[in-house]
């Protein structure tokens, strides 16, 4: 009995010792692991905070880029900037280049400000010595780090209710409509649509030049307005020859011409609209296609084209055609939510070719690798008149996750092949803000035609 009792006590002691040893080991292990756990927790929390901070910083830059609409008028040497942010923006640096010479001007914070509303900044006031009419690249850097690169503008850009327009004539400017006298003319060609009733005609859409109708110097017309108004001192003439302008007009006319004409349109039904004699303009809105210069390198790419449409964007290219040389152009246009060096990451890719000799084009649109029907427009070079343009219609809301007011990036790579050799030219990534005209078009439509 005594022996059994001794053995039991001995086992109890051993068990207790084991338990204590185990506890000590567990505490030691915990003491070692605790700093790792704490560091891991700190890592997770701080990483999250840093990510938030980085996103906030990027959003600030993105908002400035979106809220500053700008264009450059080389003939006047004026940069027009419309600041829709509601607060002043400080510009600290201006870069300008004519393709050969360049100038950089630094401004101490507070000296050069872009106030809310429309601002006109003169090149001479910036202290730039370059010939204003020859400036090809302009960049304004804000104190947040946003870079504004104004495209050329032929007219002062007006931003009304958030829409970037070059011209606008509404009911407020001409109550009851503007009477256009005999001898006037309005012409439009492209992917346009028409609605009419007994009193009014409503036309809107993207314009494409056609050699069927020509303007001054026999240039192929996309749009013409030769308007004589009741006041003999007022006469307005506009002729446009580019692919990608957007137009809306509401008129009343006793007769007009509207017929199908697919010249310059690929995989789309285009129309020609023409009105002569007397008519009344009730509403008129016009947006010029933006042209981003790439001619400095003497490559085949002259401009990258971009404009908004009803619920889509138009992106394209203009080539540097050489006189008298028959060429085949190939190209790729990349549209991406982010600026990337890895073109495999780009969601929307357009591959195309333009056969100038046979006046044919072909376009294939890839969205995340899948082929989607492409609608495209083109203008074939005419000697001494116009150079070749190609543009594609991208319903970005439908294709990719780009919504109104979102900025995205465009890049074009083109190659010109002649006599068996090809020359490649590539643009920089260009930022463009999607501001569809849908709301404007729908509101004007409802005003005259109801829902």
């Amino acid at each position, binding site marked *: 009995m005594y022996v059994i009792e001794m053995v039991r006590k001995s086992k109890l002691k051993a068990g207790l010792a084991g338990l204590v040893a185990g506890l000590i080991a567990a505490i030691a292990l915990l003491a*070692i692991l605790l700093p*790792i756990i704490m560091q891991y927790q700190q890592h997770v929390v701080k990483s999250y905070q840093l990510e938030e901070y980085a996103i906030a910083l990027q959003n600030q830059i993105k908002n400035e880029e979106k809220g500053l609409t700008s264009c450059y008028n080389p003939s006047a040497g004026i940069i027009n900037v419309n600041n829709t942010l509601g607060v002043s923006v400080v510009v*600290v640096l201006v870069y300008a280049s004519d393709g050969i010479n360049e100038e950089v001007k630094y401004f101490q914070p507070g000296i050069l400000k872009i106030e809310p509303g429309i601002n006109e900044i003169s090149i001479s006031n910036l202290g730039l010595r370059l010939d204003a009419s020859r400036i090809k690249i302009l*960049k304004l850097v804000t*104190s947040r780090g946003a870079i504004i690169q104004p495209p050329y503008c032929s007219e002062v850009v007006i931003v009304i209710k958030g829409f970037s327009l070059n011209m606008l004539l509404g009911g407020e400017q001409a109550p009851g409509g503007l009477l256009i006298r005999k001898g006037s003319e309005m012409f439009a060609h492209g992917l346009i649509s028409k609605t009419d009733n007994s009193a009014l005609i409503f036309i809107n859409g993207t314009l494409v030049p056609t050699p069927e109708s020509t303007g001054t110097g026999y240039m192929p017309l996309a749009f013409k307005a030769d308007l004589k108004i009741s006041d003999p001192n007022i006469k307005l003439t506009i002729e446009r020859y580019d692919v990608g302008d957007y137009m809306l007009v509401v008129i009343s006319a006793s007769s007009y011409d509207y017929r199908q004409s697919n010249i310059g349109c690929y995989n789309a039904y285009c129309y020609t609209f023409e009105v002569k004699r007397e008519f009344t303009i009730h509403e008129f809105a016009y947006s010029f296609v933006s042209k981003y210069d790439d001619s400095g*390198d003497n490559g085949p790419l002259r401009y990258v084209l971009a404009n908004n449409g009803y619920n889509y964007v138009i992106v394209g290219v203009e080539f540097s055609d050489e006189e008298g040389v028959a060429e085949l152009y190939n190209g790729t246009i990349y549209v991406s939510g982010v600026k990337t060096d890895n073109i495999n990451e780009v969601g929307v890719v357009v591959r195309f070719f333009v056969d100038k000799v046979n006046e044919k084009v072909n376009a294939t649109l890839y969205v995340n690798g899948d082929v989607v029907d492409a609608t495209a427009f083109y203008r074939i070079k005419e000697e001494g008149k116009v150079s070749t343009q190609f543009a594609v219609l991208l319903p970005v809301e439908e294709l990719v996750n780009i919504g109104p007011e979102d900025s995205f990036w465009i890049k074009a790579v083109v190659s010109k092949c002649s006599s068996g050799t090809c020359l*490649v*030219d590539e643009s920089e990534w260009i930022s463009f803000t999607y501001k569809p005209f849908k709301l404007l078009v729908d509101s004007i439509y409802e005003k005259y035609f109801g829902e």
Partner: protein
Amino acid sequence: MINYKSISPVLSAIILAATMIALGIVILMWISGYSTMVIKQSQIDLLRSEQAAKENLVIVHATYNSSESNVLIYLLNMGYSEVFLGPIRIIELPSANYIIFTPEGIWFNDYRAKAVVNSTEEDSLTALTMSVGEVSEYLENLEIRNLSAITDKIKVYALEPYNEINGYYRVEIPVKLNSNKTYRVEVWTIVNIYGKAYLCKLYTTQLTT
């Protein structure tokens, strides 16, 4: 018949206990060492992320001056603290004027950095040299697998915030480029942690000649 002398049970218990204690100590030291390494890597990662999130270097423009065979890059430090400008490379020029990380095809272009203060270009900035940090993962995006290949120190330039120097920086890379070609430029910033240099943030741009 061989007569084995039996080992004392006390001795065998002591040997067993000593072995277990030694093994326990080794395991604890390994865990302790591992945890120290994990903590250090995590701290470096956090410091690097913090710098990357806060710095705001702007590449205003990159251009090629064919008459002087120079690539020019205009930089502005829009952040609130100094940024260390590290290696720069033109992707399409793997062999030109390398400066560090030459083995295994890893190279960077030699360059000069100048401050332009109040529209006046100053002399070239004085380069600082830093030893490369040991944590390999931050070099993997440069495809550097063999750390022993890194023999040189990284050369960096300290770029002050724009409002402190009242100006911007101009980087000159002496290279000859072909015409009618597009070149991609990578600009790395460096962060100094515990006296060692780590690649921090990559900025990219491109130019067409």
